[in-house]
């Protein structure tokens, strides 16, 4: 049997009903007793850290397995050599163990409700036919991308640099959908909820909100395609919110409810989780945690190495390509500089194609190391708005990393 099925049934079958089937009982037995199907991976930093475990999920290629329940899967760096990240290599991050595993594309509805004149219940066909389609390339990056690089370490998903991806999203403007419903005066925020459910009723369901002006800025989208294809189930099939320039925590997957609110959404996921110190660098001292925090928001400027990978050996006297991607929150990348001598001297890298201000920007440079030895490569990006990376940063949750990164390489 294929791992993705499209089957014809009457009515709607969802996670909870499937959970109660006899097949589920067998699956539970296997979960305790099954042998693992896991392959060896490449070391992330070439150090003595254990090689990551690779796993293959439905509609996905081999990805780095952080956790299986809920699934958290990281993209291996090699996929960042292309300007658009393939759907099957795109990272996966869910919060709650009750994730959607089936969607009836006929009966699925997006509910638009709350402080609106005309509540809507939109089918996928309605979304495609009643609203103008729009498309843009945007970086989707987990708030905790690169968390494993924080020192001291912090608990949470221990991501390397692969909790992000760049894709062309196609769908409709959230503004158009809200306008069709007629947002009433007095609405201050718009709340979002997907199909995922907590395992226990007392666990807060995953919900996020945006200020009303942001939600109606004409750029926030409801996407039904990713790189010209339907979204993989694990990336939010059938539709997800796209919040260009903002961290992925707002990009609610399997979006099913949009609610205009006359007061700010009160939820653990806005009030307690996904908050950063209230300063531009999301920085704080481990010994003196910041008193004031704010919901994480726009992505800072950052850049990473994609090639060579950690632990790769280069040859003295031979030209090698050094490449990577630079990311920011929507002003676009103006300049990327690289250093091959631990930051003593810097030179401009060549920028790749400009796919729009919300896209990442690939960069590359050629380097011919003269002699054998160990070299510290560094990379730093500057955004069009002048924002630059920092030399040091730490926060308690390992969010919004914007440190100038280094890569130690051995030349033989």
């Amino acid at each position, binding site marked *: *049997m*294929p*791992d993705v099925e*499209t089957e*014809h*049934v*009457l009515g709607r079958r969802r996670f909870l009903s*499937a*959970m109660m*089937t006899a*097949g*589920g009982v067998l*699956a*539970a037995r296997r*979960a*305790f007793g*099954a042998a693992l*199907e896991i392959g060896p991976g490449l070391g992330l930093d070439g150090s003595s850290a254990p090689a990551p475990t690779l796993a*293959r999920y*439905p*509609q996905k290629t081999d990805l780095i397995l*952080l*956790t*299986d*329940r809920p699934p958290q899967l990281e993209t291996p760096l090699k996929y960042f050599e292309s300007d658009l990240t393939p*759907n099957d290599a795109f990272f996966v991050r869910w919060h*709650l*163990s009750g994730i959607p*595993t*089936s*969607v*009836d*594309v*006929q*009966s699925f509805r997006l509910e638009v409700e709350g402080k609106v004149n005309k509540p809507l219940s939109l089918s*996928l066909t309605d979304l495609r036919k009643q609203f103008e389609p729009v498309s843009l390339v945007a970086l989707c990056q987990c708030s*905790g991308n690169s*968390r494993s690089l924080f020192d*001291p370490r*912090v*608990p*949470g998903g*221990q991501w390397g640099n692969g909790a992000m991806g760049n894709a062309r999203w196609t769908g409709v403007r959230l503004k158009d959908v809200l306008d069709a419903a007629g947002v009433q005066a007095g609405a201050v925020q718009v709340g979002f909820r997907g199909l995922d459910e*907590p*395992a*226990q009723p*007392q*666990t*807060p369901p995953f919900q996020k909100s945006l200020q009303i002006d942001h939600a109606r800025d004409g750029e926030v989208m409801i996407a039904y395609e990713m790189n010209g294809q*339907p979204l993989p189930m694990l990336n939010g099939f*059938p539709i997800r919110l796209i919040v260009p320039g903002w961290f992925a925590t707002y990009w609610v997957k399997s979006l099913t409810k949009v609610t205009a609110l006359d007061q700010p959404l009160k939820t*653990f996921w806005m009030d307690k*989780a*996904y908050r950063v110190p209230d300063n531009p660098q999301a920085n704080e001292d*481990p*010994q003196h*945690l910041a008193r004031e925090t704010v919901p994480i928001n726009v992505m800072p400027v950052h850049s990473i190495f994609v090639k060579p990978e950690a632990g790769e050996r280069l040859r003295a006297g031979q030209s090698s390509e050094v490449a990577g991607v630079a990311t920011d929150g929507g002003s676009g990348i103006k300049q990327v500089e690289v250093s091959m001598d631990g930051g003593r001297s810097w030179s401009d890298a060549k920028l790749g194609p400009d796919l729009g201000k919300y896209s990442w920007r690939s960069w590359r440079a050629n380097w011919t190391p003269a002699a054998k030895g160990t070299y510290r490569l560094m990379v730093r990006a500057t955004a069009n708005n002048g924002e630059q990376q920092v030399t040091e940063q730490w926060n*308690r*949750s*390992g969010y919004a990393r914007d440190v100038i990164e280094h890569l130690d390489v051995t030349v033989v």
Partner: protein
Amino acid sequence: MNRRKLIIALAIMAATISSAAGQKPHPSSSGPEVAGNASEVVRIKLPDYAGEVPKGPNMQVYESNCLLCHGSRYVTIQPPFSRETWQKEVKKMVDAYGAKISEADQPKIVDYLVAVRGVAESKPGQSGH
């Protein structure tokens, strides 16, 4: 099977509405047609990557309280943390996420976490999400 075990089994079932035993999952990029006449369900089967639960004191207390929401791998990918950090994590699960962990079980779970992923930290850390 007591009630707690039943709940855990249901949770694991939910996460493993799964392929037949021994079947290797394989990728598919083929997507569904969104428009169509008949009702159409797109369904995936999550593979089993549950992994083994690390051995440690109070392992059963940890299993019965924590594995309802978390796969057992979550602990195995964490770097070592101090007892203080693990205490904060367990408290957060109770206070923020509504985990029904008894007063008596909470320190036992901390002991387990310290045993499998504990080491002194120089500085405090709190969790990301």
